[in-house]
C-alpha cells in the first residue's frame, strides 16, 4: 500500500494496523521497517520547519514502480510505504517503509532498496525554514541534494 499524506501520521500504529489488515498471520517471519523523521538541525543550522513539495501523479506512479521493482528482486509478502507532504515540524515522521517477508534477508534488503530509490528518484523536494540565533532573520532554503545511503 502506498500513501502520500498531507497531515502527520504515527508510523508505529500505521504499521500495526497494516499488519493486521494484510491478513498474513503465520506467514511472515520478518518485518524490516525504516522511519525517516524531521530533525531540528541540518548542516549545522537550526531548522524550525519544513515544507515538502511533490509532483502529484508522478509521485504515486514512481513509488508504485519502486515497490514493483523490489517485489521482482526479493520474495515479499507485503509492503507499506507512507510519505508526508506539506508543512512539517521537527520530530514529525517524513517517510515510512515497512516490508514483510518469510525471511529476514529479503525484508532487510528490500526495505533499504526502497528507501534508497525513494531518496534518489521519487519527486519530492524539501524546503527548510531556518532560525539561527535570536536576532537573525528567518531564512528559507531548498535542500539541494540527498546523499547516498549506501
Amino acid at each position, binding site marked *: 500500500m502506498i500513501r502520500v499524506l498531507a497531515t502527520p501520521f504515527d508510523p508505529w500504529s500505521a504499521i500495526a494496523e497494516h499488519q493486521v489488515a494484510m491478513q498474513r498471520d503465520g506467514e511472515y517471519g520478518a518485518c524490516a521497517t525504516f522511519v525517516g523523521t524531521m530533525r531540528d538541525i541540518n548542516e549545522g543550522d537550526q531548522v524550525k520547519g519544513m515544507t515538502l513539495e*511533490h*509532483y502529484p501523479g508522478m509521485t504515486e506512479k514512481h513509488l508504485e514502480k519502486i515497490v514493483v521493482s523490489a517485489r521482482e528482486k526479493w520474495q515479499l509478502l507485503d509492503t507499506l510505504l507512507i510519505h508526508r507532504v506539506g508543512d512539517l515540524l521537527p520530530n514529525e515522521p517524513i517517510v515510512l517503509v515497512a516490508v514483510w517477508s518469510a525471511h529476514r534477508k529479503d525484508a532487510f534488503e528490500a526495505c533499504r532498496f526502497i528507501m534508497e530509490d525513494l531518496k*534518489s528518484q521519487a*519527486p519530492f*523536494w524539501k524546503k527548510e525554514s531556518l532560525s539561527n540565533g535570536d536576532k537573525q532573520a528567518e531564512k528559507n532554503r531548498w535542500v539541494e541534494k*540527498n546523499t547516498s545511503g549506501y
Partner: protein
Amino acid sequence: MTQSKNEHSMTIKVLYFASLKEVFGCAEQVINSTGMSTVDDVWRHVSAGCEVQQSVLNAVNQEYAASDTAVKAGDEVAFFPPVTGG
C-alpha cells in the same frame, strides 16, 4: 497540405517544481509553439533568457525522460531540481 514535423505548432503543458518554480515564477504554463521535437527543444523555449544555475531533471507524462526524449502535442513536460524526499 503537409508540414515538416518541426513546423507543426503544438500545445504542451509545462510544469516546474521547487526552486525551478521560483526561477520561472510559476508552477505551470501551457506553451503553443512550432519547432519542438524533444524535451530539450521545450527547455530552450521556456528557459530563453533565464539563468538556471543548477542541474535540471525532466519528466514527460510523469515518467523520467532524457533531454532528447521526443515530445508530442498534449504531453505534460516537467522540469525540476534533484529530488530531496525521504
